[in-house]
């Protein structure tokens, strides 16, 4: 979550990330420090300005002296922490997680409106996914085109809940939520009714901008035309906090 500019009584700690000496405020998470210092760390659910979700598990890092892995988005820094973000093991795990996502629904980049501007596609390339080892599920999901300005394609949804969080936390409408469990999870508007009939959607479009894939897009876009802009979010979130 974005913080107001001045916070009293917060100590500054020193730590190392991939053997680089760094300093950070103790209320920062590992991923925030990584982003500040241009250390690439993959994530699909984290977004500066939204609450912590911890669902995509791509930002898992190793802490020296700890057997288990930690999600960088949900772990605060501490004095003397020694963090490793790019071990061979982590790279293998990240690749597998992305493959699991590709196999889960229909992610066919060649016909996607977000082709070339998609965070999933970009991460897959970064993480060296050249093919998917797990079997594709081939399940067909519906497309909701009932909204006059936007479209929701469940086939391209990765359930990162950025849309749910931005709608609830920034816009204050809470149009989106999740229903079902396991692989049956689905993003729904209001009480699982067509988006276009939603009573409380303000058509602000924030959900479309924060969506990392081609699941939420503007109507009328064609292959590769959907370019998203998320710069508004941290600015808006900080102003909200300052009030």
């Amino acid at each position, binding site marked *: 979550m974005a913080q107001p500019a001045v916070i009293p009584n917060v100590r500054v700690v020193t730590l190392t990330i991939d053997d680089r000496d760094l300093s950070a405020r103790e209320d920062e998470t590992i991923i925030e420090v990584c982003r500040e210092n241009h250390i690439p760390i993959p994530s699909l659910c984290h977004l500066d300005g939204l609450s*912590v*979700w*911890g*669902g*995509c*598990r791509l930002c*898992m890092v190793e802490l020296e002296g700890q057997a*288990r*892995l930690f*999600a960088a988005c*949900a*772990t605060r820094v501490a004095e003397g922490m020694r963090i490793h973000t790019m071990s061979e093991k982590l790279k*293998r*795990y990240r690749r*597998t*997680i992305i493959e*699991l*996502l590709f*196999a*889960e629904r229909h992610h066919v980049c060649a016909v996607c409106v977000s082709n070339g501007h998609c965070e999933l596609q970009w991460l897959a390339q970064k993480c060296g996914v050249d093919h998917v*080892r*797990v*079997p594709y*599920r081939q399940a067909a999901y519906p497309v909701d085109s009932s909204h006059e300005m936007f479209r929701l394609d469940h086939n391209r949804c*990765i*359930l990162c809940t950025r849309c749910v969080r931005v709608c609830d936390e920034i816009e204050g409408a809470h149009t989106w*939520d*999740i229903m*079902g*469990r*396991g*692989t*049956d*999870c689905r993003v729904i508007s209001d009480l699982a009714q067509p988006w276009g009939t939603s009573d409380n959607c303000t058509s602000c479009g924030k959900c479309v901008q924060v969506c990392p894939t081609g699941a939420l897009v503007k109507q009328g876009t064609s292959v590769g035309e959907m370019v998203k802009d998320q710069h508004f979010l941290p600015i808006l979130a900080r102003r909200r906090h300052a009030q």
Partner: protein
Amino acid sequence: MHPEDLAEKAAQIRAETAAIKREVRVCMAASCQSSGAQPVLAALADICGDGGGTCHVKGVGCMGLCSAGPLVAVADKDCTLANAVLYRDVTPADAPDIMQSVCGAPVERLRCPTEQPFFQRQQRIVLENSGRIDPDSFKDYVAVGGYAALVKALSEMTPAEVLREVTTSGLRGRGGGGYPTGLKWSTVAKTAGAQKYVICNADEGDPGAFMDRAVLESDPHRVLEGMMIAGYAIGANKGYVYVRAEYPLAVERLQTAIRKAKGAGFLGARVADTQFNFEVEIRLGAGAFVCGEETALMASIEGLRGQPRPRPPYPAEAGLWGCPTLINNVESFANIAPIIRNGGAWFAGIGTEKSKGTKVFALAGKIQNTGLIEVPMGTSLRDIIEQIGGGIPDGLAFKAVQTGGPSGGCIPEQHLDIAVDYDSLKTLGTMMGSGGMIVMDETACMVDVARYFMEFCMTESCGKCIPCRAGTQQMHGLLDKIAKGEGTHADLALLEHLCEVVQATSLCGLGQTAPNPVLSTLRYFRDEYENKLVSE
């Protein structure tokens, strides 16, 4: 109120019923009820009438040997189950004979011998009242020393002293993780907060496990007493029991217990005439296994979608509605009253070096005596299965025992002599879990077993994190393929890789432990997997 006042009250209750010499106890727990205990109780009570003032028919909690139900015990009033005359598979038609036997010779055709190891080898602490007292009766509980620990804690001990006794006892969380209870309590006690909560986790969901259900159905006051002592020790005045809606009888008995305890002044404002206040509310789980995970459970109590969140912060620091929260399992709370009553050192004298006390296990599967047992930690698996459990039926050979539910693993024959405790089970690649034990005979296919548990995890995954949501599904698909004889060596290698990824990267315990049944069956029964593979 002082301990002497309560002792006097207990003596008074015993005096009221002093004329009653013999009791006919009918098991009214869920298992015996489902095999027809209700009409048996009605028939017995009908014949008995007022019993001439010397005999009394009453419904009691679980007697343990569920496979032989409905169970009826005929005993002197303060007699334990191991010394009672026990009848098995009782029908209403047997009622006249049983009532005849109250003052005469036992009915041999219905006898269920209590000299067998199943009854004699148990050590009952958690289940001490189970099968003896009427779970709906507040007086019954007080008569056997109920609420004495609470009154002792409130009137004679400081919260710090209570914490010390619980720490000394060495009790570890009975929900499965085995986290030291004293440490957990002390942490919550030390955390600053105007409002704190106590939660009792009764969302027992492992297939084949029914320990918590039996405790709630048989002795609900004991759980309330444990929660209140916890509340006093950590400074909380509100408790929640999160119990699954699939346990209607347990919920009903708990509601009755709360009502009666309140009526008697042992719950609510000024508990037992002291300055201590404590309220308990029941929250029903709507059937999601993941809600047994503490952060998901708390989200569910708050009225939110039951899914876990990253820890830290742990519940001790920021739990229910952001307040410091103590969350323990039913069986953990059920151990508290005896610990306070007899002292932590007494409890620490039972069990093994690092696992103290007893453990309740639910025996299920291919075993003669299915049901509920309580044995000291450190009892060998062989004793539990061959002696207490009576071995495998139909002359078949033992193959494996599954402990820890979908988070646990299978233990093969060669490790049966291990002394059961938290740490020994971990070294075998499984875990204590909440206490379910599913015994399998030689006909069981271990790939099938792994597939079954993976299917369970797949359907119970909340869907929040990718490794658990998509990983369990892919693993299930691969197991299914292998079980059908269509899997290849590449499939098995991929399965093992997915196990590693899901275990290491999942958000909560459900995903992190979901691969355990696969990993443990691969460890001990790899040949069964390999025999099913086809060459590419």
